[in-house]
């Protein structure tokens, strides 16, 4: 199945173990490797504090932490399921704490950001079947199969 994705490099992490949102962000920034600058992780942690990204879907809460384009070398995306839910705060309502099970962290340069890369990820995540398949996947290959090849 082809899906419209804003990037062609996509990494998967299944069952990430972490205690806090900052731990999740740092671990996933590491997975993005040379796609991001050394400053990306802390910039994303700071942005999440300032503008939380947790979204309470009916079946699972999803977070979309990210950093500004100046911390990105080249576009990429990491999709992670968490071994145990981790607390992120809710987008637009920082006092609301969500137990997040899925994290999608894009590294977008100004070009993809201008092309509404985040909006296309948000649209993608509205697919309940995709959310379920990503959560249920027992391997990273299964997560990749659920998401499908970039269109």
């Amino acid at each position, binding site marked *: 199945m082809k899906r419209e994705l804003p990037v062609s490099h996509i990494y998967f992490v299944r069952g990430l173990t972490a205690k806090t949102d900052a731990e999740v962000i740092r671990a996933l920034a590491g997975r993005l490797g040379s796609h991001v600058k050394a400053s990306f992780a802390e910039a994303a942690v700071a942005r999440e504090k300032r503008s939380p990204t947790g979204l309470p879907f009916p079946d699972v809460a999803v977070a979309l932490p990210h950093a500004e384009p100046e911390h990105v070398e080249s576009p990429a995306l990491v999709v992670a399921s968490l071994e145990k839910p981790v607390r992120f705060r809710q987008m*637009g309502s920082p006092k609301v704490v969500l137990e997040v099970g899925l994290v999608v962290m894009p590294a977008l340069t100004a070009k993809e950001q201008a092309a509404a890369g985040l909006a296309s990820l*948000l649209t993608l995540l509205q697919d309940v079947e995709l959310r379920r398949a990503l959560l249920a996947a027992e391997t990273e290959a299964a997560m990749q199969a659920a998401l499908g090849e970039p269109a």
Partner: protein
Amino acid sequence: MKKILVACGTAVATSTVVAKKLEEALKARGFAVSIDQCKASEVPSKAAAYDVIVSTTEVDGTAGKPLIRTLSFLTGIGIDADIEKIAGFLK
């Protein structure tokens, strides 16, 4: 034509998704509307020119215009009720 202002933190990501969904939903109900996007911080100065304000985040005043603050267009939870509410303001 009625005008709706859709706001989010940066005016880039979430408001784009909300504006698209809202336009489709209102079209399906027979409403032709004009929808603009802005940053939440711009709402107080822009709201006066609109009939309804929809925001995913806190806004600091809407010049007396009705405000629907919701994530329903992103998560699906409560979306029908929000569309009804918005449609009510457009009549």
